[in-house]
C-alpha cells in the first residue's frame, strides 16, 4: 500500500490553475425542464460572464428545485476563501448589476460560504470533474477509514444508528455485519431504482454528487468484504445514469478504485445496470432477480439477502442515500441526516436535508420551507405506500421510522382526500406485478370498493389486513396503507359510507 495521504493530494496537485470567478449554471433535469440555457442567453447572463472572464460551468440542480432556472455566481480570493450568491428564477428577471458585482474581481465582499457539510453540501457546486469533488472533500472519509480495521468501521456504523434510507429503515450497521459474518463471495447491490412517485432525492444525489455514492460503496466493500457491486439505476433516470457512469470512469482512471488508493488486497468491481420500469423493481428481491436475468418478481423471505442474495450468496442491498450517508458519519457535524423530496402546496419544493434526531417538528419543517400552515389540511408521506399526517399532528416531532423514503406531498385546501386515495390505490393496481394473489387480486378489489358511492369500510379493512399479512412483498403489504390512513385521519370524508 502506498502512502494514502499523498494519493488524494496527487489528484489535487495535478490541477493546473483555477479560475477565480465562476458562473455555475444549474442544469440537471430541473434546469433542462425549465429551459435554463436559453433563459441565460436571453437574460444576457452568458454575455456578462464572458465579458468579465468568468468560467462558465454547467452543474446540477442544487436541491432547490423551486428556484429553477437558477445560476450561482462565485468568486475565490487569493486565500482560497470564496464568496457566492445564487440568482433564483432567472426566467422572471435577473439583477445583472448584482451578478456582475459578484463576478467582478475588483469588488470586495464580506460574506463567505458557510463551509457546509452533510449530504447535500456539494449539490450544485461541482463541474462534473473528479478534481472539483476531491477539492470539496470527496474520498477524504474513505481515506481515513481505510486505516481502520473492518470491525471498528462496523461498530461505528452501528453506533451512528444509520438506517435504510429507501424507506424500510433497517439498521445499516446490522445489515453489514450479518453479511460480513457469512462465507463469501459477497455482493453489494445499490438500489437506485427510486420508483416511488413523489420521491426524487436519489436522482438528485446521482446527478449532483455521484462521487459521494462511490465513496460510500468503497467503504461498504472494505467493511463487509464485498467482491462485486451492482448499481441498479432506474432506466428513466437518464441524467443520473450518465452522471454516475462518468464519475465511475473518473474514479477508475485516476486510480481511486485501484491499489494506489485502496487498502492492501482489496479490489473493487462496480457494474451499472439500468432498470426497465415498474414500481415493483424497487423491491430488493426483485432487483436480485432482475440482475440474475430472471423475471422481475419478488422472492420469498426468508432467506434474507444477507444470507442468500445474488446467486445464493450473502448480499448487502443498500439505497443510494444510505451509502451516501455513510460518508457523513465520520464528520463531527451534522449527525446522520435524511433527504426529503418536497412537492405540492408549498412555496419552495425541492430536496431538503433534515436532522434525524427527532428535534424537528412538522410545523418547524413546513414553516422553514415556506408553507402557509393555515392552508395545509394535511401532508402525504411517501406515495402509494404512504400515510397522511393530519394538521392536528403537525406539532409532533418528525420521526425517521414514520417518513419512509422521505417523500412529502403537501395538500392544499381544495385537495380531495378521496380522490388522492383513489388515485394511489389505482396506481398500486396498475403496478402490481401479479406474482401473488393477495396483491394481484386485492389491489383490484380495493379500487373497486373505494369507487363505490357508499364504501363498505368493514370490507375495506378486512381486505387490507389480508393483503398486509399474505402478500409476497411489501408492495402488496403496504398497498392498503394510504387507504387505512385516510380513513383514520379523515373519518368525515367517509362518514356517508359507514354502515
Amino acid at each position, binding site marked *: 500500500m502506498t502512502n494514502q495521504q499523498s494519493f488524494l493530494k496527487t489528484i489535487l496537485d495535478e490541477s493546473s490553475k483555477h479560475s477565480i470567478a465562476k458562473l455555475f449554471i444549474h442544469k440537471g433535469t430541473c434546469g433542462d425542464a425549465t429551459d435554463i440555457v436559453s433563459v441565460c442567453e436571453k437574460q444576457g447572463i452568458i454575455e456578462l460572464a464572458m465579458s468579465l472572464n468568468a468560467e462558465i460551468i454547467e452543474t446540477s440542480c442544487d436541491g432547490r428545485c423551486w428556484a429553477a432556472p437558477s445560476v450561482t455566481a462565485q468568486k475565490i480570493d487569493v486565500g482560497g476563501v470564496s464568496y457566492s450568491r445564487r440568482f433564483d428564477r432567472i426566467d422572471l428577471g435577473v439583477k445583472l448589476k448584482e451578478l456582475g458585482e459578484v463576478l467582478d474581481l475588483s469588488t470586495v465582499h464580506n460574506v463567505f460560504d458557510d463551509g457546509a457539510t452533510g449530504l447535500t453540501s456539494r449539490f450544485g457546486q461541482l463541474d462534473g470533474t473528479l478534481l472539483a469533488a476531491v477539492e470539496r472533500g470527496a474520498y477524504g472519509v474513505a481515506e481515513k477509514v481505510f486505516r481502520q480495521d473492518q470491525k471498528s468501521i462496523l461498530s461505528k456504523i452501528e453506533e451512528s444508528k444509520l438506517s435504510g434510507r429507501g424507506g424500510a429503515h433497517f439498521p445499516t450497521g446490522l445489515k453489514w455485519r450479518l453479511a460480513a459474518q457469512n462465507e463469501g463471495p459477497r455482493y453489494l447491490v445499490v438500489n437506485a431504482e427510486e420508483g416511488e412517485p413523489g420521491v426524487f432525492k436519489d436522482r438528485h444525489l446521482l446527478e449532483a454528487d455521484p462521487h459521494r455514492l462511490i465513496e460510500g460503496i468503497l467503504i461498504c466493500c472494505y467493511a463487509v468484504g464485498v467482491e462485486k457491486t451492482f448499481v441498479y439505476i432506474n432506466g428513466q433516470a437518464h441524467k443520473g445514469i450518465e452522471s454516475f457512469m462518468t464519475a465511475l470512469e473518473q474514479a477508475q482512471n485516476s486510480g481511486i478504485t485501484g491499489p494506489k488508493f485502496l487498502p492492501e488486497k482489496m479490489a473493487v468491481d462496480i457494474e451499472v*445496470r439500468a432498470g426497465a420500469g415498474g414500481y415493483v423493481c424497487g423491491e430488493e428481491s426483485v432487483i436480485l432477480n432482475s440482475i440474475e436475468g430472471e423475471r422481475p418478481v419478488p422472492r420469498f423471505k426468508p432467506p434474507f439477502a444477507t444470507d442468500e442474495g445474488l446467486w445464493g450468496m450473502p448480499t448487502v442491498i443498500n439505497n443510494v442515500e444510505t451509502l451516501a450517508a455513510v460518508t457523513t458519519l465520520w464528520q463531527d457535524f451534522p449527525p446522520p441526516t435524511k433527504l426529503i423530496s418536497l412537492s405540492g402546496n408549498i412555496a419552495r419544493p425541492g430536496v431538503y436535508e433534515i436532522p434525524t434526531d427527532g428535534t424537528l417538528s412538522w410545523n418547524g419543517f413546513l414553516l422553514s420551507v415556506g408553507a402557509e400552515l393555515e392552508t395545509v389540511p394535511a401532508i402525504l408521506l411517501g406515495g402509494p405506500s404512504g400515510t397522511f399526517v393530519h394538521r392536528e399532528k403537525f406539532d409532533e416531532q418528525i420521526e425517521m421510522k414514520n417518513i419512509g423514503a422521505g417523500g412529502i406531498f403537501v395538500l392544499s385546501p381544495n385537495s380531495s382526500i378521496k380522490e388522492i386515495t383513489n388515485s394511489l390505490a389505482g396506481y398500486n393496481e396498475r403496478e402490481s406485478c401479479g406474482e401473488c394473489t393477495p396483491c394481484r387480486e386485492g389491489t383490484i378489489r380495493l379500487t373497486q370498493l373505494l369507487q363505490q358511492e357508499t364504501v363498505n369500510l368493514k370490507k375495506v379493512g378486512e381486505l387490507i389486513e389480508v393483503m398486509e399479512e399474505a402478500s409476497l412483498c411489501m408492495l402488496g403489504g403496504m398497498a392498503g396503507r394510504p387507504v387505512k390512513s385516510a380513513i383514520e385521519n379523515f373519518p368525515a370524508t367517509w362518514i356517508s359510507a359507514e354502515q
Partner: protein
Amino acid sequence: MIPFDVTADDAGDRLANLEKQLLTLPSRKSYLLPAFHMAQEYLDWLPRESILVIASHLRIPLSEVYATATAYSELRLEKPEYGAWYVCTGVACEAAGAQRIIDAIEILPEKFGRTDCQFLCSLAPICTDHRGKILGRLTENRVRALFLEDSGDQ
C-alpha cells in the same frame, strides 16, 4: 432514431449489427436485461427478430426471454408511435393542475396521452413533448406558446 421495420431494406443489416453488438456481452443469463436495453437502444423497440437473436446469444429458451421482456413496462414489444405529448398525472401534478394542461393540449391538433409520476414533482405540473423533452412548471399559456413556436418552425 428510426424504429426497426422488418420490411425495410436495412432490416437484415440492422439485425446483423445487433448480433455483433451482443457479442460484447458475456453469454450468461445475468445479461438478459442489458441485452434488452442494447437491442431497444439500437432498434428503438424489441421486434420478435431481436428477441430470437438475444435468446440464441444468451442461450435462454424463447419462452423465458418473452416472459421476462413482457414483465418490464419500459420494454417496447410493439413498434412505437411518436409525436404525442404525455402529461404526468401523478398526485403532485394532478394537484398542480395537470387537468388544465390536458384541456389546453386537447384543443390543439396534438396527440397526447397521460403518464404516471415522472419524478419531477418539485416542478409540477410537467409533461414530455412530442420530442421527448421534459417541460416543467407548465402553464396553459406556455403550452399554447410552445405549440405556436413549433408550427412556426415548420
